């Protein structure tokens, strides 16, 4: 549609109609999850469609009341926050090194990390389980954090690499002439300019560490379990306690939902990075 041409109102209405329909398709299942978490088992077990029901927080009370919930939540938060911080620090440094220096081995580092970006986690789970068992990293939060840092580094490095390339090197040189050391140059000049990249990278890393459950399932035990693993264990052979599991699912979904609403633009930058310029 060329700019400046006024479109027919009916066309605009159809446009909005289609967008609203798509938005409903995207959001309805998520809303349903939250709605189910507010229902009692008896309400869930009635068949048919019921839009009106008396919401109850009983499922949340049950889930939160279980002694181990707090431990799982703490584990998830520790793993999410610590992996994100370490990934950002190491990723920033590596991206800066790759962007600003030409050195022997640079291309190997670049290509290997680009290929590591797409490793299937199931493939990683088997040998990591074996190695972590031998070196005592199994069932420890550090073992999980180390792995999450490693799988998130490639994406973080390449996202930030793109941002750092756009920082004019003259700015850094000017700051260096003014007497700033390399660390101060990085803090005062580079860091403020790559903030959108840092936001996107931290959201993506936190989201993986917070949401991931196959590696966590394999590498943790009762004491170090994260929330998604705890949720998966609610599914038993006898059946699914829908109310409780949906309450837990909703609680797990809340942080990513908040991030999405706060920083949708940065997330889209991250999603389209590498393929679309602009």
């Amino acid at each position, binding site marked *: *549609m*060329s*700019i400046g041409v006024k479109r027919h109102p009916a066309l*605009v209405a159809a*446009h909005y109609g*289609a*967008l609203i329909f*798509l*938005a409903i398709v995207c959001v309805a*299942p*998520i809303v349903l999850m939250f709605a189910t978490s507010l229902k009692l088992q008896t309400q869930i*077990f*009635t*068949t*048919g*469609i019921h839009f009106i029901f008396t919401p109850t927080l009983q499922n949340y009370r049950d889930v939160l009341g279980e002694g181990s919930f707090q431990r799982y939540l703490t584990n998830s938060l520790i793993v999410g926050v610590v992996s994100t911080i370490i990934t950002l620090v*190491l990723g920033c440094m*590596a991206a800066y090194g790759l962007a600003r*220096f030409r*050195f022997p081995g640079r291309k190997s580092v670049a290509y*290997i*990390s*680009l*290929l590591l970006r*797409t490793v*299937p*986690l*199931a*493939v*990683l*789970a*088997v*040998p*990591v389980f*074996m*190695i972590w068992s031998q070196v005592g990293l199994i069932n420890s939060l550090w073992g999980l954090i*180390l792995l999450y*840092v*490693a799988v998130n580094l*490639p994406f973080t490095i390449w996202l930030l*690499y793109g941002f750092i390339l756009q920082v004019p090197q003259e700015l850094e040189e000017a700051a260096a002439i003014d007497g700033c050391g390399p660390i101060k140059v990085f803090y005062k000049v580079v860091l403020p300019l790559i903030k959108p990249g840092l936001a996107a990278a931290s959201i993506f890393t936190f989201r993986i560490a*917070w*949401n991931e459950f*196959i590696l966590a399932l394999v590498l943790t035990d009762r004491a170090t379990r994260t929330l998604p693993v705890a*949720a*998966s264990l609610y599914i038993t052979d006898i059946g699914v306690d*829908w109310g409780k*599991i*949906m309450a837990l*699912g909703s609680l*797990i979904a809340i942080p990513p939902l908040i991030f*999405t609403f706060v920083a*949708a*633009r940065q*997330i*889209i930058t991250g*999603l389209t990075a590498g*393929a*679309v310029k*602009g």
Partner: protein
Amino acid sequence: MRTPRWVPWVYAGPAVLVMAVACLYPLLSALQLGFYDWSMGTPWSEAKWVGMDAFLRAFQDPAVWRSLVTTLMFAAVCVVAEMVLGIALALALEGKVRGMAVFRTLFILPMMIAPIAVGLTWRYLFDAQFGLLNALIGLFGAAPIGWLAQEHTAFIAIIIADIWQWTPFVFIMMIAALANVDGAVLEAARVDGANWWQATFRVKLPMVMNVIAITLLMRLIDAFRVLEVIYILTFGGPGDSTEILSLHIYKTAFVSQRLGGAAAISVLLLVVVASLSWFALRLSNPLKDEGRS
């Protein structure tokens, strides 16, 4: 100003070390593990060298072939459906409207929430007794279907969930790409008498071909990596009708406890994904602007 040779490694070293220890080394040991027969819980010294046995057995195992076929069909159907839907919707809805930012935010929600939540929600939607889907078709008088209890419908179910989750990705990529198309070129085409159809297929789409290709590859790679949603939704069942390769690897390793066998299949999956990634790299290489050095 000459920098000492070790300076770049001060920056890149720590990240390289972590990736080497927690990604590269495990992948290489998966390769090694494929040559051994080792049971979980026993010391590594008791592992038996079996040579190419595990690889040969993997290639002769009908379960592996079935899983490979399931994976290929799943990937093909999902990716084609997502690309067609995503591109069509983007072409139809690319025009600038107020509030597009809000819509885009809502569209990325399915890929932001935890796979476990996605799996649970769809498992509930497809539930035979009180799932919303059966309630909906019940309105039209249809008998309830045991979606996740029959092989064909279970396969459809995992595809629907994937399409729901990832079509928005294609849509967002395409909207971003189309927004970058030079308006002057389109204007010129229009002046030359091109209709909507010609402008779209002869001018617009060719200009975003690179993005289409890279999006297609990203979706393909991800379709081969999917695990968690299907783990929750069907756990590969009924039978092994939805047992994609990642899930087959997981089950071989941690349910049947055959780590060597799992490692051998892992190598197969890794080769597939690595070759796709290699193509992706050729299309969208962050180093490509540098010239040869």
